[in-house]
């Protein structure tokens, strides 16, 4: 049977600039290519700048992940200069990053990913009374009456009747891969709308600790959050009470809406526990230290590597084994195409050799993307929530073991089902539950320290450049919502001489390497992956979205053509 070529460009529902090309045969994907179609050159922008200002630039790398790029940058500079931040600063960074993770995962699920599993049109034919019964059976969440669901249904009906589906226009409604009963679809649509209200209330936490949002203030050496319980201009007792309220609200939504929804929806898609696994290697840099960022033993999400889907062993992570190749990427290295470079030796010299745009196919090109290929000790690695849950599970982290076991038991699937598209969806939700619990813990510690008179949030010992060595280099780790993130900085005479970032999507969206080994997106699409209707590549979206791609990375330029966000070309 003839091969069908499928192009999906751009694939993200809201953020842009990822292109997937795939070939399918007999309803299955035989091979796939992932391409990031936009060059990023943050490295060149950073040269010659004051390292203390670096975070303000890096937080613009991604419009949505501002917090993580700022903190990773601060950590890289702190590592280079030998700065230890005060315990309060670690706790505040945990709270800010933790809330970002929670909010990001919930938004990703309901607003970017749910519509790959939930058929919004089918929800229109649901019986609200039955939806109400389902809602009551899985959660104590109060918005669960038949009247409430009928109201939601009417709102969507009015909207659909006006021909104004807008953001929903691009769905493949009625596709046979949608398996949820109309009543569960309606439940999910209701929570899609509720999540919008919830997110705005919880993310205000960033404004309290960082002064503003979406670009909160950070500080090399700690946090710029002055604490004085009795001063209205600082973080005081009233603001801490606000923080407590937000943590409670976040946790409640996660426990009573997101977690039950994911379990209910996953129950109808258990076959996706055998689809879309991919590389089988998982890497975490670890995250959420207790009080000292450098105390790696205290990381709540442990650092390490799981190889070849073997959960009996965790390998240690050593950042010096991270190297980036460019065999398939539009760059040149002074040492030639076959070289692979550690970020401290990293080079970012673009050299476009692809066909003129608009592209027909990139897959016939040797080089086909602006992404480099990061490899760990020569191996492709998946990063993200699934990697964190697998490394934690294999390392015997108690909370992770417990919640993973709970989900597997409830779905009645073996641990092997984790290595899949469904595994990613479940892992993202499980870690949200865990982080929401930890928020209370970090908050409690912070308040206890303040009550004991410790209000220090900044270590200024090395603020003055005259206290710095002539040359220094540092590595800032951070396990962000989307996965392992690294910033590498080199400082000469008080200025940045070299800066490199390896972001989660670079790991996951990386192209084929020198050995021809595909990156995680590509490998996942080639792993028992169905594609029923090439002209409606819903299954591709499911797997790619399960990684939570963030290809836009702060770039939202539009092409002049087109009226659809997801563009599919078939030959």
């Amino acid at each position: 049977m003839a091969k069908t070529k499928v192009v999906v460009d751009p694939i993200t529902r809201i953020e842009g600039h990822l292109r997937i090309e795939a070939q399918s045969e007999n309803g299955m994907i035989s091979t796939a290519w992932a391409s990031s179609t936009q060059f990023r050159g943050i490295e060149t922008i950073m040269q010659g700048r004051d390292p203390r200002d670096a975070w303000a630039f890096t937080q613009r790398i991604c419009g949505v992940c501002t917090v993580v790029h700022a903190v990773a940058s601060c950590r890289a500079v702190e590592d280079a200069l030998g700065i230890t931040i005060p315990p309060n600063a670690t706790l505040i960074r945990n709270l800010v990053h933790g809330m970002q993770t929670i909010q990001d995962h919930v938004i990703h699920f309901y607003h970017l990913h749910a519509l790959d599993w939930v058929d919004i049109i089918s929800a229109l034919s649901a019986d609200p009374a039955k939806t109400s019964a389902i809602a009551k059976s899985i959660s104590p969440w109060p918005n669960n009456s038949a009247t409430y669901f009928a109201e939601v249904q009417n709102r969507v009906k009015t909207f659909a009747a006006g021909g104004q589906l807008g953001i929903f226009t691009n769905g493949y409604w009625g596709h046979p891969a949608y398996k949820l009963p109309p009543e569960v679809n309606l439940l999910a649509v209701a929570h899609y709308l509720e999540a919008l209200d919830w997110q705005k209330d919880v993310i205000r936490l960033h404004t309290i600790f960082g002064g503003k949002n979406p670009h909160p203030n950070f500080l090399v050496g700690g946090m710029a959050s002055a604490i004085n319980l009795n001063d209205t201009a600082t973080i005081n007792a009233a603001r801490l009470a606000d923080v407590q309220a937000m943590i409670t609200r976040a946790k409640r939504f996660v426990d009573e809406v997101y977690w039950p929804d994911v379990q209910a929806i996953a129950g109808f898609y258990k076959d996706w526990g055998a689809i879309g696994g991919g590389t089988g290697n998982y890497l975490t840099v670890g995250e959420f230290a207790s009080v000292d960022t450098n105390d790696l033993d205290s990381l709540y999400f442990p650092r390490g590597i799981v190889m070849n889907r073997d959960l009996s062993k965790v390998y240690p992570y050593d950042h010096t084994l991270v190297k980036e190749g460019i065999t398939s990427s539009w760059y040149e290295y002074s040492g030639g195409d076959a070289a692979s470079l550690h970020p401290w030796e990293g080079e970012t010299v673009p050299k476009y050799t692809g066909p003129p745009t608009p592209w027909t196919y990139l897959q016939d090109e040797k080089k086909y993307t602006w992404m480099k290929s990061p490899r760990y000790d020569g191996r492709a690695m998946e990063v993200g929530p699934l990697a964190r849950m697998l490394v934690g599970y294999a390392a015997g982290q108690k909370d992770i073991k417990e919640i993973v076991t709970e989900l597997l038991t409830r779905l009645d699937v073996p641990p092997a089902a984790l290595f899949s598209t469904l595994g990613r969806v479940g892992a993202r939700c499980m870690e949200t539950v865990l982080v929401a619990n930890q928020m209370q813990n970090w908050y409690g510690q912070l308040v206890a320290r303040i009550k004991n008179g410790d209000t220090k949030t900044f270590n200024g010992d090395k603020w003055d450049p005259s206290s710095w060595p002539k040359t220094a280099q540092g590595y800032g780790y951070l396990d962000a919502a989307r996965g392992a993130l690294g910033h590498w900085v080199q400082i000469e005479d008080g200025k940045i001489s070299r800066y490199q970032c390896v972001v989660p999507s670079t790991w996951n969206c990386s192209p084929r390497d020198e050995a021809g080994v595909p990156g995680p997106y590509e490998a996942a699409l080639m792993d028992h992956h169905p594609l029923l209707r090439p002209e409606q590549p819903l299954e591709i979206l499911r797997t790619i979205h399960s990684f939570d791609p963030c290809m836009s990375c702060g770039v939202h330029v539009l092409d002049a053509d087109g009226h659809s966000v997801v563009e599919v070309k078939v030959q």
Partner: protein
Amino acid sequence: MWTNSARPVLVLGLGNPIMGDDGVGIVALEQFRERFEVSEGVELMDGGTWGMNLLPYIESAGKLLLVDAIRAGLEPGADVFLDGPDLPRVLGQKLSAHQVDIVDVLTLAQVRGTLPATTVALGVEPSTIEMRASMTPAVDRGAARLPERMARQLREWGIRVSPRTPAHA
């Protein structure tokens, strides 16, 4: 259509200042902040490229002034003005450098019945959108005109906008 005077006016700068001309909305917002004082009830916000997260801020606004790089097929640096009920539809034709976000956000606000009654977009036609921390000269000049244009728009809405007293006057 109705407006609730309790809902603030939101001036929302959009874009990414490390992406060349894409940053024009943010640069203009900062210049506006330096040059003008506005009456209470007007919120100035650097929205960056925050996407869906912007929804609650937009929903809380009675009037919305978007400041952004907008592709309208004009000369680089040219002034662009969009308003009226057509605005989401026009943005839907991929004119603005952020429409993928902003049109989705405006559409969702529409579903929820929370779209600000009045929305105006002021912008500048961008030339180069690539990773660098400065804008092209034509767009730089466009950015310099924006604070005055923003002030004029706000005054049309009956808002008091007064020049800040220069520090060395």
